[in-house]
């Protein structure tokens, strides 16, 4: 399989994730779309690692996974804490700081 196909797939997945972040109102779905974008970047990391015959790209993916796990724990805790105070996780409902 030519490596360009992986790059194209990565571009498509990143665009889908970005569109989801912009369109969706539910914070958890936005969070999941960010995960899709991270995965798209991971795929291109691994592809470039294969292209240059260098393991550093895959080590980078490992660190992205670590940061994503930390982000998931803290992000979901924030969502629970927001849900406790305003009983909703929609982005349009948490507009206290809006002028």
């Amino acid at each position, binding site marked *: 399989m030519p490596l360009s196909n992986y790059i194209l*797939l990565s571009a498509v*997945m990143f665009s889908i994730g970005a569109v989801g972040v912009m369109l969706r109102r539910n914070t958890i779905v936005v969070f999941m779309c960010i995960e899709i974008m991270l995965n798209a970047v991971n795929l291109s990391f691994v592809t470039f690692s294969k292209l240059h015959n260098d*393991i550093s790209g895959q*080590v980078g993916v490992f660190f992205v996974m670590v940061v994503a*796990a930390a982000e998931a724990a803290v992000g979901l*805790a924030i969502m629970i804490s927001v849900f406790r105070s305003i009983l909703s996780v929609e982005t349009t409902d948490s507009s206290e700081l809006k002028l």
Partner: protein
Amino acid sequence: MTELLWYITAALAIGSGLGVVMLRMPLYSALSLVLHLFTMAAMFAFLDAHFLATTQIIVYAGAIMVLVIFVIMLLSLEGTEKRPSIFLIGIAGAAAFGLLYMMAPAIRRTFPMTGGSLQGDVGTIGKSLYTDYIFSFEIASLLIMVAIVGAVVLAKRIKKNAT
């Protein structure tokens, strides 16, 4: 045979990615994302990154998605948001497809057909991780530590009579 499998996996990846964005119930989005993470693990396996494929399934599909689904069920979220108009989705899809159609030949020209013979097994990654990237590795452990404490502090119920 491998080529056919690749295209099936890619179609599944795009379909499940679209499912995450389009489905109204957050739980269905989460299940769609699990499928997406599995197809991405398959893509890593196609690229001979065996360690990452396994880690992807264990960490993402195993740990993170369980956490997400747990939170969705805890908050008993239902799909309350309106679906964006079909017209806008059509315009966005057409624009994305057009851009990709223009980009694809350039990308195909630039990249060689196949890469090197790199095998991303545990030994190779571990060696690099514990020599060149040892500082980042330690920082990552610190980050996870901070994340655990932060998650507990944020999600803890604050008592009414506390200051």
